[in-house]
Every structure is written in C-alpha cells, then in structure tokens.
C-alpha cells in the first residue's frame, strides 16, 4: 500500500498514512477523530462497523488486528489509586503484563522499545492501541488499588518482562 494513498470515509475523515506516522507521543488528530467515531458507533450498535475497522487497519497497520484481539480478550485493566492517579496494565498475547500510561505513549513492552523508539516505524504498539480501543468501546476494567501498587506499575520496566 503506497504511503501516499489517501482513504476517504463516510464520516468525513480523510487521512493519509503519512499523517499518522508523525513521530510524536500523542495521537494525531485524525486518529483521535477515528476513535471518536468508533466510540459513537459502538455505543449505538455494540460493534465496530467494517469501514471503521478498515480505517483502523489502514491507519495503524498489522498491530490493529492484534490490538482488537486484546480488547476482545478483555486484556486491558486500569488501576486507580485513591488520589486518582491511574495506569493501564495490558496482558499481552504471551501472557506477560505490560504497563501503559494514560496521557502519552509509553509501554513497557519490547516492541515499543524497538519498533517505536528505535526504528521509528510505528507510532505505538498493540498494547497502547488496545488501551485506546478499550476506552472507546467501554470494555476497560477499572480496579481501585493502593497508591504504592500504582507506583509499582508506573515503574514497570522493559527488562521486568524478559
């Protein structure tokens, strides 16, 4: 698929893959718009329409399917301290758990370190995308826990999972 290819959706979301690959730590506006549409459709129909699934795959590449699988498996949990400090934990396909942050892109998984940070050819990993999708579809589990536990999850490092 050419990186110059454009795709037009019924919901007036016109985007190119190049727009998505801005190397930033937050979502580009086109991706935010897509997630808002997914949320709106899921609220009404309890499923993601095919055209939005297509847009998701176009925008994020192969990780989109893996992220959707993680959401289907209810792999995303948000841990919240009494102060409101929160962090996401995602159970990966191998059974290992990874920590993802709420407000900017960070994941303790090796793919984030390699594909996103080092090779610069992905905006995010499947775990971060799974967090976004679980938020959009309301399928993220929320657990209240201690401040110390949240601190521990925030500190989870890449080598903790090797």
């Amino acid at each position: 698929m050419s990186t110059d290819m454009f795709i037009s959706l019924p919901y007036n979301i016109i985007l190119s893959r190049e727009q998505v690959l801005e190397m930033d730590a937050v979502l580009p506006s086109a991706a935010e718009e897509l997630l808002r549409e997914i949320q709106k459709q899921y609220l009404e129909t309890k499923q993601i329409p095919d055209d939005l699934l297509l847009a998701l795959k176009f925008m994020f590449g192969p990780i989109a399917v893996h992220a959707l699988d993680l959401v289907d498996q209810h792999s995303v949990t948000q841990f919240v301290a009494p102060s409101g400090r929160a962090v996401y934990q995602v159970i990966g396909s191998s059974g290992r758990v990874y920590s993802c942050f709420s407000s900017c892109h960070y994941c303790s998984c090796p793919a984030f370190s390699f594909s996103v940070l080092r090779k610069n050819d992905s905006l995010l990993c499947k775990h971060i995308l799974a967090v976004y999708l679980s938020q959009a579809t309301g399928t993220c589990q929320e657990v209240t826990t201690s401040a110390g536990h949240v601190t521990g999850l925030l500190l989870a490092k890449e080598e903790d999972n090797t």
Partner: protein
Amino acid sequence: MAGLLRGALRWYSGVEHAEVSTDSLSLIGDRLPYCLVLGEHACGKTSLLFLAAILAAAEEGKRVLFISRSPIQTLPAPLVGLRARLGPLSLKVGIFSLGLHGKQTLTQSDFPGNKMPKIQFLYPRSSDELLQVVASVHENEKLVPSLIIVDGLNEYAATSGHHFVAHVSALLVDTAAFLTERFSAISKNPEGVNSKCSVIVSLTLPSCTDDETEGSLNVIERYFPVRCWLEKDTYSPEGVVEGQNFRVYFSEESGIEPQQDSASGSQETKEWKVMFRESGEMTVLPLSPSNSGTM
C-alpha cells in the same frame, strides 16, 4: 514551561516587563506546560532553571520539585552577583540565607518553624532512583508540586538507553497531566497559575553526537515538543566583553504557528543573549528583532 523561562530571562536582564499579549497562544511554547532546555555544558542552563524555580515559587506561589543528580550546595556562580536581588525572593520561598542544604531530601524539621519551603530539592543518584522519585510524586497528597524541574537528564541517561529516556519522559508528562487534572478539579479558577503542573527538563548536548546520543535526543523530543535552546553565538559585536556568548530562543514542533496578536502589539522578546565573562558572571540581554538576526 516556556513562560516561566521567559520570566526568568526577563527578571535576570532587569528589563521592565513590556506589554504582553494576554493571548496565551501568541508565543511559542505557551500552549504546553512542558519545556526542554537544550545547550552545551556550562551555558547557563542550571542558573536559568534555578531562577525559574525561585520566581515560580516566590511570585506565582507554585510548589516546586527541583531534581538534579549533582547537589546544589550553594547559589550557582552566575547568580552570585544577583544575591541582593534574590534575597527577598529566597526568603519568600524558604531558602534561608541562600544556603541550600544539599541533603538527599529535606523534611519539615530541617526548617525553622517546621515550615516546608516551596522548593524541594532532591538528588536521586541513579536512573532507578529518579524513576522512583517521579513515579511516587502522587503518593504524598499534601506536597504535590505544580512545577517539576529535572536538571541534567543526560547524567541519568548516559548509561541507561532509549527505553529509560522514554520511561522517565513519559512519567514526567503523565504525572504532570494527572496533577493538572487534579488541580483543575479543585481550583476555583481553572485558568489560574496554580491550575496546572508544568515540567522543565534540561539536557546537556555533547560536543559531538553519536547515534546513541542522537537516538536518545529523538526519544525525549517526542515528549517535549517545546524547546528552549541555548546556542553558542559566534557573532561578537563591538563592545561585547570577552567570554562566551549564547543565544536563547524557543521552538515548538507542533506545526501550529504562534498567533500574531497585532491588535495589542505584543512586545514580548523572542530571543535573548546570555554572556559569560571570564569571571563566570552572567549577563542576559533581550534581543530585538532588528539585532537578533545578526547571528
């Protein structure tokens, strides 16, 4: 954030505060509460951050967390000449006699009347300790800061790789975002100075970069699109004293151009010159658009 650094530069230069547009988007870096300060070794970064911390605490009432690997035992050399001007400010923020304790952490009992100063200095010795400090900021609800400064992140990152740089940068941004949300929820004025938590990080650029250093810089720049550059200035106009000169300017990688507020005729300085004499004394001068281009 950029506004705090501009305030420090203005205060240092002694220039009266010119009429500034009230439009918060009119200057580069004012939209976002995070700023990365970049420059080579000994270009004034620590002094600038230290001054920003004092001004933020004394004049804006912010509670500041100042993190550095190297303990600050005394006033940074470039600021010594300003001791008289800093005195009243330092009393306001609880740094008594401008003598900093240089301890690993300070507790309430370290201060007269058990009154915690508005600036807390912490000196984590390793990258793991730094992560622990930042990750646990939320745990003490009575002491949450509204300005977090990390001076010399490169000293922690030197042996820790890209993932550590991303981890600590993301942790700082995420922590500040959480605190901002919390402050906004309890503040009666969501747009007020204490309704958000800001982060300033300084990074010393090595004299020659390799792939690893450049990679780490690319990583941290993902999280800090607003940058304050202290760049060596090779132009020496007549009358400029012997020593080293640096040009200070801001940039933002947002693709959004700062709005030109022509209605109020904003006079805010966009660039500054920092000059060091042989004695170490530092002078800051605002540059007007007519002489800032002569670099």
